[in-house]
């Protein structure tokens, strides 16, 4: 079905001073339909660049993105994106934001109404349809962003630290929501995060990336996302493998960060 193939992607940014940054080097991934893959890594490992390439905002220097056996050449409605914050349209109500995708596709409001209202109910904003965006809290705004993305029925959902700007409690609730939506819709999701816990809890597949050049460092298959669907996420954290995996990954990222620091210090 909707298989996403990341085929030997490299990305090089030329700097104005003549140098260059190798943001990604030979990254290859095969993401099955309905997989939830979380991506972790220290800053500068190219995870956001990778997401932007998959979304079609950036053209890779080498390699291809292939979705459903078609090469990706630019942004399109089959790959929805959820941003950290500030990507909602303040001049529209909650409902108008969610129906933006269908509107752009030329679907009449009457036709999309049912879907939009259903999605708003699913994310728990049924009573806030006519509110303005700036009247909502940060967590509610991210619910709108999720609903807006789902309204387009994309094959793949790309999430760039969608919960990064939320407080810890709201974040936990939203993690549950993301899992529920994943299970209910069966979408392929790539989720970038800075939080190891979040990556563990949500990622059925977990990718740890390393910096300079950005590359895949290690990949995990984890049981926690399946356990977490419909369950209390705090219970999942009591699973016997949870803590050890968490420690292992933290250790990995720490040593990478230290390596970067060492290198910076040595060069300066």
């Amino acid at each position, binding site marked *: 079905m909707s298989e996403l193939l990341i085929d030997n992607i490299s990305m090089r940014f030329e700097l104005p001073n003549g140098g260059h940054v190798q943001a990604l080097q030979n990254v290859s991934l095969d993401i099955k339909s309905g997989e939830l893959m979380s991506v972790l890594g220290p800053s500068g490992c190219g995870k956001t660049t990778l997401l*932007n390439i998959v979304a079609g905002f950036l053209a890779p220097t080498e390699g291809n993105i292939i979705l459903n056996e078609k090469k990706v050449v630019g942004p399109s409605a089959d790959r929805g994106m959820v*941003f950290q914050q500030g*990507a909602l349209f*303040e001049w529209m109500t909650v409902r108008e934001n969610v129906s*933006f995708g269908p509107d752009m596709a030329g679907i009449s409001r009457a036709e999309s109404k049912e879907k939009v209202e259903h999605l708003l109910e699913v994310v728990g904003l049924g009573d806030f349809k006519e509110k303005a965006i700036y009247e909502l809290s940060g967590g509610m705004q991210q619910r709108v962003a999720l609903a807006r993305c789902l309204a387009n029925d*994309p094959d793949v959902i790309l999430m760039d630290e969608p919960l990064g700007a939320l407080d810890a409690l709201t974040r936990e609730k939203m993690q549950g929501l993301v899992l529920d939506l994943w299970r209910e819709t069966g979408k392929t999701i790539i989720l970038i995060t800075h939080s190891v816990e979040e990556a563990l809890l949500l990622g059925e597949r977990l990718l740890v990336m390393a910096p300079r050049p950005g590359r895949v460092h290690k990949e995990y298959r984890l049981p926690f996302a399946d356990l977490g669907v419909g369950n209390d996420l705090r219970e999942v954290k009591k699973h016997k493998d949870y803590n050890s995996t968490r420690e292992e990954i933290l250790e990995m990222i720490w040593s990478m960060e230290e390596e970067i620091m060492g290198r910076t210090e040595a060069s300066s």
Partner: protein
Amino acid sequence: MSGLLVLVLYVTAFFGSYAILSRLLKRYFQRDGFNSLKTVTFGDESAVKANRIASVISILTVFWLWVAFTNSVIPLPKLPGPFQGDVSFTYTATLEDGTSDDGTVTVRVYREDIQQTLDSEGNPGKEPSAVDVEPGDGFAKNDSITAARYSFKVVNVWKNDDVSKKDGSKITAINGQAIKPGEKIKIPEGMIGLTDKGTPTFAPATGLRMQRLYLPAPEVVMQRFIRLNKEGYQGFTLWEHTRFSLQRVLIGFLLGSLIGIPLGYAMGLTNWARGWFDPIVEFMRPVPPLALIPLMIIWFGIGETSKVILLFLAALWIMIIAARSGVSGVAIAKVHAAYSLGASKWQILTKVIVPNSLPEIFTGARVAMGVCWGTVVAAELVAAEVGLGKMIVVASKFQLTDIVLVGIILIGIIGFLIDVGVRALETWLVPWKGKV
């Protein structure tokens, strides 16, 4: 002198009213809790708010100072006024042989603005006639003259005397007090003196109030306002003067927006347009519109065309820059989100970039309207056939200070209302401004 007095009174009013009111209305003046410790303002967390009592008292103070320094009929405490009424003094004329005789001079002091006042039937006031006096005995006869307030009168006391100045009659004393040429004697009603050649002079006491020429009283300005509405000035009623000025501003501003906003969008969206218009915009932006007035008059004359083009130019650069920064200021996440929701380039322009730039455009519109309003008045001051600026500059040439004041007050109020109007429009159309 009186300028310093105004300053002293104003400062006293500022501190005095605070001292009194902060004691009387203790609770209103108290800042409680956490905010009482804040002294600096940070955006919307500002701890300093306008005290509206202070605003009201401030306006009242200015009004009171205005009344206090004019010959107003409004019953408020006023500074000592000029002398008005009848006063007489005696002069002693001495002949060469030593004989002397006393005569009196009666002066009727009348309002200097008598001709500008109207009686109940609407006729202008007339200067009063001098008091009838008996000539009296001796060779020095009694005189009677009239003098306007704030004036200075040379009194030819010998006019009706038996012995003239040429024949050796000299003034040696005033009110029994010896006086030499060039000296002065002060009486409560004014100043009596002798010129260097020995002729008496009289200047009525002026007090500390301004004469109408310099500062007309509030009610005089109000009456002038009513008359301007009814009769107009220079062939146009006040409303017509105002309308012409406003019309120029609106047309100029609308043209400037109509051309400037699309140009700003183009500059924000394409490198070519940005490069093409950048030198022109950056060159023209710092040129004050007032500096263009002479050129506009040379090219387009003093009619409507030159005014509208001037205001168009005043608004144009501001609107271009506002629209440009509105476009550049769009968060890339919004554009990306719209793309991945399936929007086309055109849809992103109309549904994302244009609405996103509205707050900036409204900020620009507020600035542009303010600049246009200032510029139109200045342009009319230089040359125009009709308009508020033209009205005040012509009135100033005829020393009709009340018309000048009516014009200035009206210009201020309209400028304020324009700003309030644009801000109201802004909260209505761009309710999300400053909240995200």
